[in-house]
């Protein structure tokens, strides 16, 4: 009895101390995370000319920079909406092609058990492990050989190349949970492989398709290096390339740049939070399990 009475306050104190320590760490993490984000927002809210000050928050916050971005009111932003559309177009094409190519491949390897399918999945795994930046130089040259320079399709090709390996893994991992008997039953009933693919495989793979589709969209939207190397004209380039162009000038309009950065970052953030659960499940699988 005595020992319990002695232990209880001690235990409570320890628990409160642990909670306080966790809270302190949590606050540090919060500040660490938010400082660069606060910086983007506060610079974007500066009215023009006030960027070069020593304030740590904007004296007269205004939405002027966002208005300039929306109306393409600066010569850096001349083709902003066209560039936004290019980014969207590349993203959409990457999603469709990645899902199509990835699911067909995984169907062939995992469900139809094609001979030497493991070779293809090894090739995909190897591609997943090659850093994209290491392949950029020959890729650029080869796009010239293919006659695709300054063409959005060269970028789509690049994004699909780097998104499909991931798609193939996730699909193969996920498909294990779908009983193969379903395919066999349909085959025995006379369905062709194409019918099995469309009517059984794809509907049951929907969660994996959503996860990989989101991944491919964000990959294509966020990627910079290939878009920068492969697209040169202002009308054909994408938002990140245009954004980086601001850096070339000495007198960068930083507030417009940050406003552009926010407009560019909002769609992927919204998509990320909307599909967060599926994405993280998929990423955990793909990033770690392979």
């Amino acid at each position, binding site marked *: 009895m005595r020992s319990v009475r002695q232990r209880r306050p001690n235990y409570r104190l320890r628990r409160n101390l642990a909670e306080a320590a*966790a809270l302190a760490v*949590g606050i540090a993490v919060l500040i660490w*995370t938010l*400082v*660069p984000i606060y*910086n983007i927002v506060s610079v974007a809210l500066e009215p023009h000319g006030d960027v*070069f000050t*020593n*304030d*740590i928050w904007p004296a007269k916050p205004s939405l002027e920079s966002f208005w300039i971005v929306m109306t393409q009111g600066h010569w850096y932003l001349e083709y902003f909406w066209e560039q936004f559309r290019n980014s969207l177009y590349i993203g959409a094409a990457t999603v469709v092609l990645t899902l199509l*190519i*990835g699911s*067909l*491949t995984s*169907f*062939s390897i995992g469900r139809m058990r*094609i001979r030497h399918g493991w070779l*293809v999945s090894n*090739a*995909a795994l*190897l*591609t997943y*492990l*090659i*850093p994209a*930046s*290491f*392949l*950029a*130089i*020959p890729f650029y040259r*080869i796009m010239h050989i*293919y006659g695709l320079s300054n063409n959005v399709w060269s970028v789509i*090709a690049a994004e699909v*190349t780097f998104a*499909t390996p991931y798609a193939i893994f996730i699909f193969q991992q996920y498909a294990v949970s779908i009983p193969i008997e379903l395919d066999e039953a349909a085959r025995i*009933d*006379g*369905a062709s*492989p194409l019918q099995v*693919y469309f009517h059984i495989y794809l509907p049951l793979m929907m969660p994996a398709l959503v996860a990989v589709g989101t991944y491919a969209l964000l990959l294509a939207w*966020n990627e*910079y*290096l290939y878009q920068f*190397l492969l697209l040169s004209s202002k009308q054909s380039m994408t938002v*990140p390339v245009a*954004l*980086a162009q601001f*850096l070339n000038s000495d007198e960068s309009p*930083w507030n417009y740049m940050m406003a552009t950065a926010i407009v560019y*970052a909002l769609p*992927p953030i919204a998509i990320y*939070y909307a599909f*967060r659960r599926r994405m993280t499940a998929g990423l*955990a*699988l793909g*990033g*770690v*399990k*392979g």
Partner: protein
Amino acid sequence: MADAQLIEGHPEFPSRPLSVRSKYKRARLGGLQRSEFVWAVSFIIPYAAVFLAFVAYPVVYGLWLGHSPALYAELLSEPIYQRTVVNTVLYVVIGVNLKLFGALLLSGLFMRRGWWVKGLLLIFVLPWAMPALPAFISIHWMLNSEWGLLNNFLWNVFGVEGPGWLDTSRWLALGAVIVSHIWKWMPFWTVILLAGRMAIPQELYEAAEMDGATGLKRFVHITFPLLANLYLICTLLSTVFTLGDFNAVYFVSGGGPALSTHVLATLGIRNAFEIARPDLGMAAVMSALPLMIPLVMVLMRKMRTTEVQL
């Protein structure tokens, strides 16, 4: 069976509902392997084409571009390249380990219950959810010696004149790059390790508590042994990704001051496109192969054979 074959042969038959008889026929004949094989091959052709046209060809082309030993002699004689190798090693070793160790500890924080922990996790993943470019551009401007947020803060609050983070010292700039990389990518690994922790059965902890193991003991004897394999795979994978990370260096320090903070990925692009020496750029990238090849081999083995519990 004979009339089943006959009926099957009729052109109008396929439109009829699938019958038991056709089932028998297919099951018995099993002779569809050829047409099945044709389907399977045609399903795999798109990816094979993508792989050959956009992976195999560039890889071979790249190897050919950087095959001459003279290129490596030229690289090694450049002080920029020597510094770049040191930077790459520091960037990868410090960046990966700090990031993953931080992620391991923070995943423990996010295992706690309570509303603020859940809310914090939502905010904490923001750097990962946002594209790299805005994040790194923001950090670049934040570290501006005259107008950046950090030095403004130091001046306004402490009355201290902050250093030129990115334009005076190689080590400050490289440190800034490493910290930016950690800021951007730690959330991703935290989420992965958090998923790993959640897969550990709660009963193990309860049993350990019965035996009097709490706090650090719990971590050392239960959490870490069970997470070790996952942690190792994460480290290897992150090493490969960090070796290829272009954006952090390119946008935070831009390789400056005076080309002293390049890593192999950015130096390769610089050689190829700024000084128009694609062969030299490819050689810089390929000089990472002695590290890359064993890493990739180990990873391919690990990722194919081990079933990491998630």
